[in-house]
């Protein structure tokens, strides 16, 4: 059920996320050495355009990527098909995007 | 079960069998026929996945220049067949093979082995005077059939898979064929398919022998049907044995399957149970002699050895270096290993094994038979090979004549306005014949099949005698009569293999009788037919072929002189200065 376009979209977003995830992971490991706190997180990210773009890109990519991924799983394992499958995919993508966007906004500009 | 239980189905062209002949016929019929012609392919197994063309290893004979000519191919075929072939058929075979190979290569897309310079690689099978055999490794048949099968599957031809033809049904006046009665094996229901033209390409298959190579679906159904329809069958005594079939015991279907010819060519040795190499006692060429000679050598050696525990002889390759054998014969080594034998390092027990049936329905060079509306091609048709088929001529024959049949049927049906009405009396007879076992007490069919195979091997096998064959005839009758008493559990006829085992054995009994009677009628030794009571080949000029037919309920065999339409014994079509052979001697 996966055609070339969805496939490419999933791969491109994956490639995009890979460096972002790496950086994020390294920072997290570095950061958690002394335990996490709101202030610490916000101190780093608040008002930073770089971090906004960084996490912004990530959540867009993640929303697309995992929407396609869950679509595949829903099709193969649960048997959802046809228009419902597309609706499912879009819903997953949108939910992830909105939740993510809210979080990014929260830690950067809010 | 009554006539009204038979489902009816109509088509324009009906093809029985999906070997080289059947598939080519389907393609050619489609290319040649008027638009809208309905073509149906009915086959006992799955399309392209049954029959022997798929099992072709060595390759495809065709003269493609480089010194080789159609004339040379033809002369090899005639001499290989010991002057018994129908010369017009043999000629057409050699000539059309050239077209067919281009078709296979260019249109069907076969992937044949090449020389370093990019041209087709050709090698020489035993009995050939030129490097002529086109191949794809030693899996040539898989390549040819896979490619053909794809084309046919994509062509929109109507598929009737796992449909077994059981009877040719003529019109009431007997002047033409009306249709074919079949069993839809998946449901167990009967189906009558009417057609303007029917090609029978069910591929013969001498599986009435204890050791045999053909695929399990081949049980002489076609020839048995043709016999009942009153058609004349020629060369029915001619059963080709391959010298080296695997001997793995009677409990495995692996027994009888071919260990390839190339093993002997590469220097494999045949060794008897006392550890002796024996082939040089029979022929100067030793293991490299032709199939019939080696088969007889092994058979004689087996007869000498009276211990039933040690039945066959051994093929030994290890002196060539196990690693090199493993590398050169990868497929064979793996196949042996899968059944528990070490071909590379140890010796493997072998026996001669019934391989190919030269006999068949008498046809003209356009595959037409004596019965209007019935066409026959491939191994079911007699004539092209005479008393012996050259390695590589089998698949050439089926593909050439299959294609011709397709074209001929497409042309012939143009003048046929409507389908013919079947003779209900014969339909009823054929139906009764098929359901005969269903009303009897179920018993095992297998022991009876073994009994037939055993006696055919012993009495009508590699080396024959009058008394042996007479004994064989009595044995066949016994098996045949017993079979009529044996019933089959009819609780579920869907995919009921035991019912089909019964029907298989029915066909095999009928044709075994013909083989034996034809063998008795030929009082000399030619090609595949060897009689120790008549070891002489007879004068080539006076060559006769046997013609068997059913008269009333009796099989009669006559002999007819071979017509030397193109070349007479002692003569050749080759120029006077042509060398005897173009094959470089090693």
């Amino acid at each position, binding site marked *: *059920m*996966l*055609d*070339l376009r969805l*496939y*490419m979209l999933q791969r491109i977003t994956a490639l995009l996320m890979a460096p972002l995830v790496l950086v994020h992971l390294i920072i997290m490991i570095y950061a958690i050495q002394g335990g996490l706190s709101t202030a610490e997180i916000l101190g780093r990210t608040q008002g930073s355009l770089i971090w906004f773009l960084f996490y912004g890109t990530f959540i867009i990519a993640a929303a697309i990527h995992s929407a396609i991924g869950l679509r595949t799983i829903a*099709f*193969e*394992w649960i*048997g959802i098909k046809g228009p419902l499958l597309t609706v499912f995919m879009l819903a997953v993508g949108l939910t992830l995007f909105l939740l993510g966007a809210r979080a990014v906004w929260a830690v950067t500009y809010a | 079960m009554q006539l009204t239980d038979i489902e009816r189905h109509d088509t324009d062209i009906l093809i029985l069998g999906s070997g080289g002949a059947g598939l080519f016929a389907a393609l050619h019929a489609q290319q040649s026929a008027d638009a809208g012609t309905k073509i149906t392919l009915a086959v006992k197994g*799955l399309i392209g*996945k*049954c029959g022997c063309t*798929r*099992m072709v290893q060595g390759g495809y004979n065709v003269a*493609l220049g480089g010194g080789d000519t159609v004339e040379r191919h033809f002369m090899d075929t005639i001499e290989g067949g010991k002057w018994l072939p129908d010369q017009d058929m043999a000629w057409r075979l050699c000539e059309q093979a050239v*077209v067919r190979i*281009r078709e296979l*290569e*260019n*249109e*069907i*897309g076969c*992937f044949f082995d*090449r020389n370093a310079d*990019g041209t087709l690689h050709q090698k020489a099978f035993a009995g050939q005077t030129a490097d002529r055999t086109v191949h*794809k*490794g030693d899996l040539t048949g*898989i*390549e040819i059939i896979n*490619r053909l099968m*794809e*084309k046919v*599957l994509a062509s929109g031809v109507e598929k009737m*898979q796992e449909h077994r033809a059981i009877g040719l049904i003529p019109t009431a006046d007997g002047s033409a064929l009306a249709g074919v009665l079949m069993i839809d094996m998946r449901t167990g229901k009967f189906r009558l398919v009417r057609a303007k033209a029917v090609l029978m390409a069910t591929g013969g298959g001498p599986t009435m022998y204890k050791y045999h190579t053909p*695929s*399990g679906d081949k049980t002489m159904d076609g020839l048995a049907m043709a016999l009942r329809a009153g058609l004349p069958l020629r060369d029915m005594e001619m059963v080709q044995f391959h010298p080296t079939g695997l001997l*793995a*015991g009677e*409990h*495995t*279907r*692996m027994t009888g*399957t*071919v260990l390839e010819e190339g093993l002997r060519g590469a220097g494999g040795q045949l060794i008897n149970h006392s550890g002796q190499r024996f082939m040089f006692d029979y022929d100067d060429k030793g293991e490299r002699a032709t199939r019939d000679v080696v088969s007889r050598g092994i058979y004689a050696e087996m007869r000498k050895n009276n211990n039933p525990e040690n039945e066959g002889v051994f093929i030994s390759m290890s002196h060539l270096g196990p690693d090199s054998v493993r590398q050169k014969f990868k497929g064979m080594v793996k*196949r042996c290993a*899968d*059944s*528990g034998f070490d071909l590379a390092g140890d010796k493997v027990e072998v026996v001669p094994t019934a391989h190919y049936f030269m006999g068949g329905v008498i046809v003209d060079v356009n595959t037409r038979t004596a019965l209007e509306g019935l066409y026959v091609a491939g191994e079911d048709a007699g004539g092209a090979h005479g008393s012996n088929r050259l390695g590589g001529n089998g698949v050439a024959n089926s593909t050439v004549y299959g294609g011709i049949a397709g074209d001929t049927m497409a042309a012939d049906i143009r003048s046929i306005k409507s389908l013919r009405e079947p003779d209900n009396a014969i339909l009823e007879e054929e139906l009764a014949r098929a359901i005969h076992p269903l009303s009897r007490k179920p018993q*095992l069919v*297998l022991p009876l099949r073994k009994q037939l195979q055993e006696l055919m091997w012993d009495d009508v096998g590699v080396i024959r005698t009058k008394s042996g064959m007479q004994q064989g005839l009595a044995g066949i009758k016994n098996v045949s009569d017993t079979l009529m008493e044996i019933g*089959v*559990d009819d609780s*579920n006829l*869907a*995919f*009921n*293999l*035991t019912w089909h*085992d019964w029907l298989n054995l029915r066909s095999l009994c009928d044709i075994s009788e013909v083989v034996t009677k034809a063998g008795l009628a030929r009082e000399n030794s030619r090609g595949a037919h060897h009689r120790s009571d008549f070891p002489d080949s007879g004068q080539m000029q006076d060559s006769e072929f046997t013609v068997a037919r059913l008269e009333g309920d009796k099989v009669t065999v006559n002999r007819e002189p071979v017509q030397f339409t193109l070349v007479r014994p002692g003569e050749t079509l080759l120029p006077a200065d042509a060398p005897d052979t173009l094959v470089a001697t090693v």
Partner: protein
Amino acid sequence: MSSNTIAVTVHRGSGTSKELRTETFDVPAYDNQTVLDVVSWIQQHADPTLSYRFACRVGMCGSCAMMVNGVPRWTCRTHISKVLLDNTVEIAPLRNLPVIKDLAVDMDPFFDKWVAAEGVHHTAVTRDDPIREIDTSGESRQQADAGIECINCSVCFAACDTVAGNADYLGPAALQRAWTLLNDTKDDGREKILAAVSGKGGCHNCHSMGSCTVYCPNELDPMSAIAGLKRETMKQFFGGRKSTATKQGQGDA
């Protein structure tokens, strides 16, 4: 073998009936016995109504495949000793195909997909043209050669979980055939093939789980063939190598 019989559990029934069940038979053990021989013994001696399919009996026709202890195999080429677990073996119809009856499946969906993947030679020339010279040392010929010996037995098709979950998926054998043709310098169907394998049942559905390659009895490698298709379709996606004109040169002479 410790005892001289084998306990063989066979899955019975037909796709439509709800009477799917298992039955266990005690089959005498012999030397040189394949799984097909065991199945045949049951039909020939114990239950004449048992249905299964075979033809060539030597690994050439690809019509005898079944699930043997959960693994798809050619039964004619599998020695029984290789699959026995405590003298028992469980035999079921090939996975991912509709069951006709007992151990015989309907292989049509497999072949329909073969054709749908454009697994049919695309003709450029006719029987009236000469046979072309082909450079066998070339990369593409080697690629084509790698998958040419597929006997369409459907073992890989049965092994693949993606096929199980995704009814549209063309499956490993069909895609491998498409890849072979794409590399065959004689084939003229590049556009069609790439379109066919980029569709909704195409190569992009494959998750590279590799069961096809692991279980192919012919030691072929459909997984890598499918990866090849993914690469080619991607090149096409980025507008890189524009179809046509790529395959000349080698064939014509």
